[in-house]
């Protein structure tokens, strides 16, 4: 008996269920689809379409020129290398982290879980400067000779994305029924064998989910690449930014956007196929399963300690330390300065923080609301092969906003949302909407593994016992979804707090968010501005840790739908 112990009876695809309630799906899917169409597909398509029109006539010339240049393909190669290596390292280091933080019991675990999420929202410009500062010749890690190197970029990408793997995989792992592993152990399998034949196959959908997310983040990384990559390094994302914002060369930008879509779509198809092969109903435990640390956990603990300590905490602590450095020695002067506006900025950092919180709240409401609907639809298992294909397509479509350049979307907004009733170009509302679109894929990827793992027999049993579709959703799907909800809310909120790319295009000087103010501060001369930028980053990081911790803590702990 192998990895299918727990899942034998499910055979997801063959079970026909909910077939008569297609209208329920349609209603649930309509709103998110319209949202995505209006705020993503339309703007992107409209801007790319402009690249094919020169002097009023349709032409492929501009696009062809870009596609035939050797530089373009070097950039594509660098993008792929960066994304593949960044993803591989994040997954390799993140899976042991998920085990330690979600399957082992030790004091301080909750705090540590919150801490690893912090890098995810730190403004890239600050992280770029922090990493760069550690790596320049005069500084602590200067001897490594990594300044402006590929390893430095990969390290920064892992710094940002480690928590995505840890949390996505950990959420499922913590609920994995240990009895299958126990049975395998009883039958004589060693720990390694159990891991390879029972545990990892069961986790594969979550790992594939996390890998797809991280790939998209790495492929479209912008700020950190510009800062750490050095002048000759470029990716599709940085090139789109340059061609669009600096040159307004729309044919070149269109060609690059299409290349980006190809890369992103290909990666989503691979991830989707992997998930489809691996996905099955799992026996999930109602309560988190964990055990005190054992000697056998040592390798995982060692890897996690090195990653968390060296790669995550060291740069963050050096950032915190430098925020305390003032002209008169160590102190809190930089923090005290955050409340002032005199001669520094139009609004104080605390006001910006309030703006950030209000924006994040709106963005979270939108993304979690839509995310629940999308996840519900995507968790269905249609009987027909074509139905499943459509569902996979829909799944991939909702991931696209993560992989497509914020520049393309931002400039697309300008030429599409320009007439009533959708003249939102200078509306504050566009900021949470743009942020929600970036957070939506994360929300879906967080909710979906748990929803998809629901044993279809539960639905059948409920239906047999006379429960209508609404009742089935309320009594079976919703309690399961709620388990992932805390985490989804945390991710959505954190994403919105830290979002800079899309936000910067819509920024309002009289109502800036915290990352925008940090970006402004660090772009000004003088030790005070630099110190304030660091102090504000520490505030943002602390806030994130608290939000993520709260989200996890609020999530229902006792759900027993069995």
């Amino acid at each position, binding site marked *: 008996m192998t990895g299918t112990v727990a899942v034998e009876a499910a055979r997801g695809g063959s079970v026909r269920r909910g077939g008569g309630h*297609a*209208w329920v*799906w*349609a209603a649930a899917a*309509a709103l998110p*689809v*319209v949202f*995505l*169409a209006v705020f993503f*597909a*339309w*703007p992107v398509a*409209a801007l790319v*379409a402009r690249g094919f029109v020169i002097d009023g006539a349709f032409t492929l010339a501009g696009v062809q020129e870009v596609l035939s240049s050797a530089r373009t393909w070097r950039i594509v190669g660098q993008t792929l290398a960066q994304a593949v290596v960044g993803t591989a390292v994040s997954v390799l280091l993140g899976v042991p982290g998920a085990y330690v933080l979600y399957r082992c019991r030790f004091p301080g675990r909750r705090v540590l879980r919150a801490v690893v999420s912090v890098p995810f929202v730190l403004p890239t*410009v600050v992280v770029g*400067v922090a990493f760069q*500062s550690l790596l*320049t*010749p*005069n*500084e602590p890690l200067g001897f490594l000779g990594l300044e402006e190197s590929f390893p430095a970029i990969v390290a920064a990408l892992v710094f940002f994305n480690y928590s995505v793997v840890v949390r996505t995989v950990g959420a499922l792992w913590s609920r994995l029924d240990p009895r299958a592993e126990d049975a395998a152990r009883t039958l004589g399998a060693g720990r390694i064998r159990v891991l390879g034949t029972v545990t990892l196959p069961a986790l594969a959908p979550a790992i594939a989910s996390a890998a797809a997310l991280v790939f998209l983040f790495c492929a479209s990384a912008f700020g950190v690449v*510009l*800062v750490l990559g*050095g*002048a000759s390094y470029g990716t599709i994302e940085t090139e789109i930014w*340059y061609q669009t*914002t*600096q*040159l*307004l060369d729309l044919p070149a930008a269109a060609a690059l956007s299409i290349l980006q879509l190809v890369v992103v779509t290909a990666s989503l198809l691979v991830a989707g196929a992997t998930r489809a092969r691996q996905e099955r109903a799992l026996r999930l435990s109602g309560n988190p399963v964990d055990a005190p640390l054992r000697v056998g956990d040592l390798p995982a603990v060692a890897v996690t300690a090195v990653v968390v300590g060296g790669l995550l905490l060291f740069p963050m602590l050096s950032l915190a330390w430098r925020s305390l450095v003032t002209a008169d020695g160590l102190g809190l002067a930089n923090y005290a300065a955050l409340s002032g*506006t005199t*001669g520094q900025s*139009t609004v104080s950092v605390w006001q910006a923080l309030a703006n950030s919180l209000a924006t994040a709240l709106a963005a979270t409401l939108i993304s979690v609301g839509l995310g629940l609907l999308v996840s519900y639809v995507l968790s269905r298992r249609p009987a*027909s092969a*074509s*139905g499943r294909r*459509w569902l996979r*397509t*829909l799944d991939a*479509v909702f991931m696209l906003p993560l992989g497509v350049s914020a520049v393309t979307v931002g400039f697309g907004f*300008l*030429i599409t949302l320009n*007439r009533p009733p959708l003249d939102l*170009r*200078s509306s504050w509302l566009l900021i949470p909407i743009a942020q929600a679109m970036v957070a939506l894929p994360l929300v879906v990827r967080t909710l979906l593994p748990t929803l998809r793992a629901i044993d279809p027999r539960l639905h059948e049993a409920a239906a047999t016992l006379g429960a209508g579709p609404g009742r089935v959703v309320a009594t079976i799907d919703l309690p399961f979804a709620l388990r992932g909800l805390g985490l989804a809310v945390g991710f959505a909120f954190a994403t919105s707090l830290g979002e800079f790319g899309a936000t*910067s*295009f819509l*920024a*309002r*000087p009289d109502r800036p968010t915290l990352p*925008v103010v940090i970006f*402004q501060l*660090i*772009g*000004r*001369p*003088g*030790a005070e*501005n*630099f110190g304030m930028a660091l102090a504000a980053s520490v505030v943002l990081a602390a806030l994130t840790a608290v939000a993520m911790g709260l989200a996890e803590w609020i999530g229902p702990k006792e759900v027993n739908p069995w």
Partner: protein
Amino acid sequence: MSVPKLLVAGLASVLLAGCAGPAVPAASSPASSAAPTESHTITVITHDSFALDKATIAAFKAESGYDVTLVAPGDVGTVVNQLILTKDAPLGDVVYGIDNTFAGRAVTAGILSPYTSASLPKGADAYAADDAHSLTPIDYGDVCVNADTEWFTAKGLAVPATLDDLTDPRYKDLLVVENPASSSPGLAFLAATVGAKGDPGYLDYWKALKANGVKVAKGWTEAYTVHFSGSSGKGDRPLVVSYSSSPAYEHKTEVLTGTCFRQVEYAGVLAGAQNEVGARKFIDFLLSSDVQAQIPEQMYMNPIDPDVKLPADWTTYAATVTDPITVPVADLATQRETWIKAWTAAVIG
């Protein structure tokens, strides 16, 4: 039709509607032939370095009675290109922050409507971007090489003075500049070398700088706060491209006044604005002594009005540049991209 097909059909139809493109609104009549438009709202487009005291903006709101919306979509390049892209349905009424490296492009693209402000201080004509007054100069700043004075004193080395000094082997591996493709001071310094050495002489100069170990950073933040030894970042290079005003914030640094390029920032009424009257009032407001006096501390530039008193730190530490290197606005507009491309090929490879 199955449900998923319906969804995709819906998505496709929205997409197709998008591809058809927005109908181009009928060309608005030129401002000169009709009375200027006015409404009770005004949308101001600025670059992302824009900052003014909140009370000052509130005073403008109160005095004009307009509902003011400020939008800052990015750096100057982003702003100008967004305005060009949205020419048919303007993003706002007035723009602030277009500099002389982008001014020619903005004027040629026809996104501006001429206006001559009665508030222009005397002498401001020297900064005019074109004869039609499409743009109104608001402030200027000199982009110059800055030196870490302490570093040079400690080494017993004379601080370099000219562009040519920077290629002297005694100053090998000491200079960090910004990439002109991604940074506005970087572009200004490239313009300085073009102005001083001519085209194509500037490329030979850059090859000499490269041979002397010049370092290229992405933007001002990385160059000044990470690599420059004279800032709180404690980098390892004592020479950096920054502003003539920077020493007002890092007192132990100085400016190489022979290496400066003057950046002028303009405001302009957007062609097709819904509130042309308001746009003009906003430009007058930017020229008012209240705003002009704030510009140094808020935006790190020199006010265009020579009568405005500078902050004490500026008069003590900032350099006065009397004879900056200049390049005609028209040349900047037509040649900028060529220079950047040639520079990239020569310096980055």
